[in-house]
């Protein structure tokens, strides 16, 4: 069982003219796992998804999805996958029900099974009431839910979600996250691309960090954070005049020099258990009191910055503008 991969890719390369979108990507995704592809816009995430879903032929390299070769057995792959893309790929001039029914028929489930499945999914995604309405009356969040439902029509063992929550408000994102988590508990393998670090952190068991067409790091979210270093400890001293003594006392905890700012000592701990307790003991032994202690875990943001030297996502202020301009 250990060698059972739902998605395997080796040496995927793809260029568009002079632009190298993928420069040799390897992936191994275990069956029944959620795997995150994390990277900024233009990193190559969507190109990977397109190749794995048979939409795009790579210049070189090979890939197997659900046990079948994407290049030679495209039809068999398509029978076993679901895709929800960056756009809510649903027909605005059909009702929610008709959209799902159409997809069911195109998976060749038959008329009756397509309808039953459509009803089931509308219930699962809380769209029963909206099911008879034209999709063009739906909100953005409802469209995405319908889109995800459409990807699940044939109960595919492998699901590709390409930035499923890009452009959604926080509440709709939460709803979608819950839906994705429910799916995974049902045994579906999910390949999720995202530029949201919290999304990868929350949903994915393993994460590949993609930048400029390469996998630059891979592992569980904990492993990736460990690459950046351990927890950051912040201590506010009750008497700022003890600061120098505190720095001396704590210096043995870290390879980096502790920093001091406004009576607050910051120190990057080694990634070992018990380091926080040790810090507190050391200060106690030195007779230094403190008002407050806080532990900051490194975020995937820190990971990205450390690995690539640039931030993973656009700053929050820019984002709403990009959303309204980019999407309808």
């Amino acid at each position: 069982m250990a060698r059972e991969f739902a998605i395997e890719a080796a040496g995927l390369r793809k260029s568009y003219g002079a632009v190298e979108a993928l420069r040799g990507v390897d992936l191994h995704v275990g069956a029944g796992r959620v795997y995150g592809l994390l990277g900024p816009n233009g990193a190559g995430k969507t190109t990977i998804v397109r190749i794995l879903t048979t939409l795009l032929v790579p210049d070189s390299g090979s890939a197997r999805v659900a046990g079948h070769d994407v290049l030679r057995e495209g039809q068999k792959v398509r029978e076993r996958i679901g895709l929800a893309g960056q756009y809510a790929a649903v027909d605005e001039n059909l009702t929610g029900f008709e959209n799902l029914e159409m997809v069911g028929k195109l998976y060749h489930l038959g008329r009756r099974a397509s309808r039953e499945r459509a009803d089931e999914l509308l219930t699962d995604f809380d769209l029963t009431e909206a099911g008879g309405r034209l999709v063009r009356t739906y909100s953005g969040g409802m469209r995405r839910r319908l889109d995800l439902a459409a990807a699940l029509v044939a109960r595919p063992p492998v699901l590709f979600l390409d930035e499923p929550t890009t452009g959604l408000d926080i509440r709709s994102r939460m709803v979608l996250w819950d839906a994705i988590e429910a799916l995974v508990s049902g045994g579906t393998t999910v390949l999720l691309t995202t530029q949201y670090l919290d999304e990868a952190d929350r949903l994915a068991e393993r994460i590949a960090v993609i930048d400029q067409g390469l996998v630059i790091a891979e592992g569980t979210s904990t492993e990736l954070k460990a690459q950046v270093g351990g927890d950051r400890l912040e201590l506010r001293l009750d008497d700022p005049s003890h600061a120098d003594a505190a720095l001396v006392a704590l210096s043995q905890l870290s390879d980096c020099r502790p920093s001091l700012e406004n009576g607050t000592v910051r120190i990057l701990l080694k990634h070992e258990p018990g380091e926080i307790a040790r810090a507190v003991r050391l200060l106690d032994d030195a007779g230094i009191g403190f008002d407050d202690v806080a532990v900051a875990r490194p975020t995937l943001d820190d990971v990205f910055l450390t690995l690539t030297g640039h931030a993973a996502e656009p700053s929050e202020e820019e984002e709403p503008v990009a959303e309204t301009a980019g999407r309808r």
Partner: protein
Amino acid sequence: MSTLTYAVSDTLVLAKRSLYRIRRQPDLLVGFTIQPIMFVLLFAYVFGGAIATPGFDNYIDFLLPGIIVQSMVFGGFVTALGLSEDLKKGLIDRFRSLPMWGPAVLTGRILADVGSNAIQLVVMFAVGFAIGFRFSSGAPEVVAGIALVFLIGYAFSWVFAFIGLTASSPEAANAYGFTILFPITFISSAFVPVESMPDWLQPFAEHNPFSAMVDAVRALFLGTPAGNSVWLAVVWSLAIVAVFAPLSAWRYRRSVTR
């Protein structure tokens, strides 16, 4: 089930989807019904008095076959716009990731065009008859003429499918379609006799495949001399399909969401 069964059933599923759209976007329905009525009436009454059509009882007899063929040619516009929108909205990606018969995305649209062309045809015959158009050939010729009209519409749907998959946006598809097809349909025998055009333009109008198509339909509806226009019209239509169906299928296979 075999590939053929899937080809048929997937085409029908997607044709149904396209036809739903006509019902739900009332502006499209206006395009299919009011527009042909408008064209027939405008040409018949605004230009009719000024255009001499020797050999025909009246201008409406001359005009109606021309305007019908033009409407069939432009009927494929819905396919261009629809495919272009599907591309923009990511639906083509979804379809291409399904285990369906791929070309059904095109054949479904084109089958729906045949349906909407039928609506247009009925409307135009109704208006034509109301203002004096009469068939003056036998029933078999009229039936053959109607079949030819559908064949022409079918051929140009493939042209529009290619335009829709190639243009960068629905607006661009619209612009390409009009820029290419308006001169072709107007510099022809559709609305005026070719002899009335300047000498330098006549050779183009005479050899324009669109002229052959109009002349053929006119001959079949009115019993005017057909010359070799009927077989020319059929050959041209089939040639257009032979070129643009594979081109469109190729474009579809490598289409990418914009």
